């Protein structure tokens, strides 16, 4: 080797492009890595050693044993990406792309590409733990179950079954979700809920009340067929990354893409049009678009006449939203709103996508219904390329919602009426009166002026009244018990796969956690719950296995149900959730009822049997045809499904849609292919077609609610019709089509309660939808605002709008609790707290983030909690990029975070990601974790600073529009 002069390294003048960029570009990651170096040093040192060790271990493992390929589904979001694992000697040694999956075609975001870490579980909760004298002590499962069981039985004795709260999870498989809801029912309470309450409850309520089902109507894949895509409050690039594969394919096929958000998001960066909206002004924007649509006659008149009820009332409201008023309230110039309306009108079919930016408001239910109305006006629902593509959050939040881990319903949206309980008593094979006796039947609400429960349920028995929602459990603990619609306050909480940092009002939460007699965390990780309260005793951590250590089914956002193989055995002392449920039920004395129809092996209820029981009861949404056998067949033949239509072309699943998206009507033997697009009348019901559901009666104020002249292909009733009952079959002369056995089972029943499935089978044989054929309704007369209207957030900086657009009156009882609106809005906080505070996601982390922040591959990418602040606001507050700041919410709770000064947020708006936890009031709580179980990355929980505010229908928490102030720390 010798030294010589050599040619210039940049012959074309473009050398070192990257170095140039790296030198000057300040993006989120370079920013964070820089700030992270000093503070994250500990984390770095902690992380290197084990990762390097693992490489050596993996090498050894490689030497012995055959490699087995097993398939699962990513546990991080609702896209449902297939995961392929190579397992050797029980060790998950390698992860491969799942090219066969029609949902992701091999792709993964950072989270999905890192799931193999679950096979290491370095920072997992490894053993059952008990807090004694303020220290964590390892105990056995038997001790834990015995002690916890004794305690809750004691609480039941003193305060009734409603004093124990069962907070479940969207991380459960379908089978576990169902078993959990059943568990709470057998315990005798409706105080059971999960993440759906705080992510899409307003969607489920708003959308179901508009056209029948509260779920994504089409699919990610179907977006290949869209001509326009309207995103509002959805940042798919970070929240549903692989969905972007389909979205960008749609865009390449010519679709116009519009993004509405307070932030210029990574999704907005790919849009044709971006509109920066003031947080909480969605209804005015949508009505502002409809203003142009109606004015120019762009609405689909024929469609509205045949299939929509109440659009005239919408028109009257929309007329008030002139371009000037819209600009005044939303901050979006009139010309931009018009352009968006025109784009949507001229490019049909178009789809609308929304997420938590739209749902998490005190008027979330108004927002979701306004979105639906826009699509109905354009005739976009029930067509390929159109629809309401509501992207759900967690991997199985759709399934957990369907299976009713909710305080206001049983599985399948059956509600809590006596008939619903009877239906499930029938399915479960338990005596109804015994079941009723499990509840606090002696409790009668005697408070003056208390309202009825939702849906007009009487309060004569807590069995029929909606329980306390997860957003409000804090108040269930802290509120004066005389104001709560149950015997006593909450005394024990089970956080079963649920992070507390996803809920607002940090200081009160801390107090509530310290007030409870018993706190039990069942989770693969200790979570923020383990470290937030200052307690000495009365707290247990039970290690649950992840979904990769068990098996079962999971429902993606598009209602496709996928089967997961078990990849590896549970790590450490962890157990699958359904095994833990069984153990606890045994201790509490109802294990036999819980698993009456199931084989139980070594305390583990057989997953297939749970699904079969689900199939026997879930007639409402057609989760009856997806037997374990059919789902396993789909798993083995993923590659035979078309990636746009999701239809199997040949092979053993020929004619099925991937994952038998519900409704998959009738029994498994009926072989229904699933319904890929809801309300699509161009196909017959037997082939996955549908029409809007007859859910709200047949007429309202003397006007016909049934469809007029519109029906699914091949229907023998060529007009609207009500839902099917035994009597209706008789009137139609179709009763004789039932077999004798079916007749016996169907007598006196309807399409939802006939366990033989005969009524559904015969209706479909005649081309009809079992649930009837009605119009969608643009107005929901059972809601506080029948026509969706705008109301200012409780904490608003626009005091000038409060008078014209006030919030609701305070309510004495809403889901058992007093709920405040006006009394909060009346106090003007906008002078002391001048900035709007909003929140959202980062691609590397998910939910409360404990799991992902414990994964070194992800943690390295995002080491610091931060707040995005516009340069103007930063300069006004004397804050520099990268420095520590205190951010104080309008109720006085503060968090210490790094300032990230960026134009991504508009002037006057501050954004924080909500995945961090493990800090409180500026302090790292690392010492409070059980040893070796602290996540690599910790930070202040954004929601600590978020404030009071709950949706008027579902108690969704308001986390997208409140107020704050910032100062240098």
């Amino acid at each position, binding site marked *: *080797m*010798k*030294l*010589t*002069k*050599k*040619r*210039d*390294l940049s012959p074309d003048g473009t050398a070192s492009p990257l170095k140039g960029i790296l030198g000057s570009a300040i993006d989120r990651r370079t920013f964070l890595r820089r700030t992270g170096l000093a503070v994250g040093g500990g984390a770095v040192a902690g992380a290197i050693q084990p990762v390097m060790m693992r490489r050596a271990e993996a090498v050894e493992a490689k030497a012995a044993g055959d490699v087995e390929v097993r398939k699962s589904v990513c546990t991080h979001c609702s896209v449902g990406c297939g995961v392929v694992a190579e397992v050797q000697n029980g060790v998950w040694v390698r992860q491969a*792309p799942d*090219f066969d999956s029609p949902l992701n*075609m*091999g792709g993964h975001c950072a989270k999905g590409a890192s799931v193999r870490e679950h096979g290491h579980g370095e920072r997992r909760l490894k053993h059952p733990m008990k807090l004694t004298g303020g220290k964590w002590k390892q105990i056995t499962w038997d001790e834990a179950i015995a002690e916890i069981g004794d305690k809750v039985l004691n609480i039941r004795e003193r305060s009734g079954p409603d004093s124990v709260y069962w907070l479940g999870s969207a991380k459960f498989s379908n089978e576990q979700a169902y078993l959990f809801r059943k568990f709470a029912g057998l315990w005798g309470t409706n105080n059971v809920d999960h993440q759906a309450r705080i992510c899409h409850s307003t969607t489920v309520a708003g959308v179901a009340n508009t056209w029948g089902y509260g779920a994504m109507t089409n699919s990610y894949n179907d977006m290949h067929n869209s001509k326009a895509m309207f995103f509002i409050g959805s940042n798919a690039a970070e929240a549903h990354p692989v969905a972007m594969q389909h979205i960008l*394919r749609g865009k390449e096929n010519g679709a116009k893409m519009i993004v509405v958000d307070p932030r210029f998001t990574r999704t907005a960066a790919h849009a044709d049009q971006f509109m920066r909206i003031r947080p909480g002004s969605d209804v005015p924007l949508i009505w502002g678009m409809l203003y142009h649509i109606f004015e120019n006659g762009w609405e689909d008149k024929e469609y509205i006449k045949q299939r929509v009820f109440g659009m005239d009332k919408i028109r009257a409201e929309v007329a008030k939203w002139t371009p000037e008023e819209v600009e005044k309230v939303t901050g979006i110039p009139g010309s931009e709103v018009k352009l968006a309306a025109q784009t949507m009108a001229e490019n049909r079919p178009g789809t609308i996508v929304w997420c938590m930016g739209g749902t998490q408001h005190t008027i979330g239910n108004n927002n979701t219904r306004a979105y639906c109305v826009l699509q109905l006006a354009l005739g976009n629902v029930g067509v390929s390329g159109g629809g309401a593509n509501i992207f759900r959050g967690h991997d199985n939040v759709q399934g957990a919602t369907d299976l009713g881990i909710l305080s206001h319903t049983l599985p399948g949206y059956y509600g809590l009426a006596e008939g619903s309980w009877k239906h499930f008593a029938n399915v479960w094979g338990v005596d109804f009166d015994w079941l009723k006796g499990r509840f606090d039947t002696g409790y009668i609400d005697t408070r003056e002026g208390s309202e009825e429960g939702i849906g007009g349920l009487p309060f004569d028995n807590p069995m029929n009244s909606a329980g306390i929602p997860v957003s409000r459990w804090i108040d269930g603990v802290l509120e004066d018990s005389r104001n709560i619609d149950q015997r006593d306050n909450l005394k024990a909480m089970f956080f079963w796969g649920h992070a507390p940092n996803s809920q607002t009002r940090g200081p009160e939460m801390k107090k509530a956690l310290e007030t409870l007699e018993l706190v039990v965390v069942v989770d693969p990780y200790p979570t923020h719950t383990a470290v937030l309260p200052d307690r000495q005793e009365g707290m247990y951590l039970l290690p649950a296995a992840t979904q990769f250590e068990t098996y079962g089914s999971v429902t993606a956002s598009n209602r496709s149900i996928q089967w997961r193989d078990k990849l590896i055995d549970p790590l450490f002392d962890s157990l699958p959730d359904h095994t833990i449920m069984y153990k606890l039920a045994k201790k509490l004395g109802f294990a036999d009822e819980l698993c009456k129809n199931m084989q139980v092996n070594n305390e583990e209820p057989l997953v297939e049997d749970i699904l079969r029981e689900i199939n026997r009861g879930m007639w409402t949404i057609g989760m009856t045809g997806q037997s374990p056998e059919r789902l396993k067949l789909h798993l083995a033949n993923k590659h035979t499904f078309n*990636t746009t239509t999701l239809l199997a072309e040949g092979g053993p699943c020929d004619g099925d849609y991937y994952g038998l998206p519900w409704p998959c009507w009738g029994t498994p033997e009926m072989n229904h292919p699933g319904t890929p697009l809801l309300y699509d009348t161009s196909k017959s019901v037997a082939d996955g077609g549908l029409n809007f559901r007859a859910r709200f009666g047949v007429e309202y104020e003397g006007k016909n609610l049934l469809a007029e002249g519109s029906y699914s292909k091949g229907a023998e009733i060529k007009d609207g019709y009500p839902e099917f009952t035994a009597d209706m079959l008789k009137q139609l002369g179709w009763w004789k089509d039932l077999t004798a056995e079916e007749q016996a089972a169907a007598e006196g029943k309807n399409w939802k309660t006939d366990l033989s499935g005969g009524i559904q089978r015969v209706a479909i044989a005649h081309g009809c939808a079992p649930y009837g054929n009605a119009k969608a309704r643009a107005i929901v007369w059972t809601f506080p605002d029948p026509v969706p209207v705008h109301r200012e957030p409780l904490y608003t900086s626009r005091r000038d709008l409060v008078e014209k657009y006030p919030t609701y009156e305070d309510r004495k009882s809403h889901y058992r609790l007093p709920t405040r609106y006006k009394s909060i809005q009346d106090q003007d906080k906008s002078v002391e707290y001048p900035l709007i505070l909003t929140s959202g996601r980062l691609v590397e982390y998910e939910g409360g983030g404990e799991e992902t922040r414990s994964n070194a591959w992800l943690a390295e990418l995002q080491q610091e909690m931060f707040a995005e602040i516009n340069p103007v606001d930063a300069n006004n507050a004397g804050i520099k990029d990268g420095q520590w700041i205190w951010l104080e919410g309008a109720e006085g709770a503060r968090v210490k975070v790094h300032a990230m000064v960026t134009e991504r947020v508009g002037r006057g708006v501050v954004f924080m990601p909500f995945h961090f936890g493990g800090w409180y009031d500026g302090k790292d709580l690392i010492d409070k974790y059980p040893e070796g179980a602290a996540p690599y990355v910790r930070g202040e929980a954004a929601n600590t600073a978020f404030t009071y505010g709950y949706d008027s229908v579902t108690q969704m928490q308001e986390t997208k529009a409140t107020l704050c102030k910032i100062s240098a720390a």
Partner: protein
Amino acid sequence: MRKVTLTLLIVASMALGGCYESTDITLHDPGVYRGGSDPLLAKQASPEQRARLGERFQMGQTDR
């Protein structure tokens, strides 16, 4: 192995050829690879291997 050496030699001589055109930067002249041998080199030369990689590309990286 011999093939690599040869390639590198050619690269080296071409680089040398250009060495008086610019005087901006002082660099080391690449010499001959002195490390261990890599069986992959022979493998990559086989048409079957190339076909396999081509198929893999079609399967994994197209919008099927």
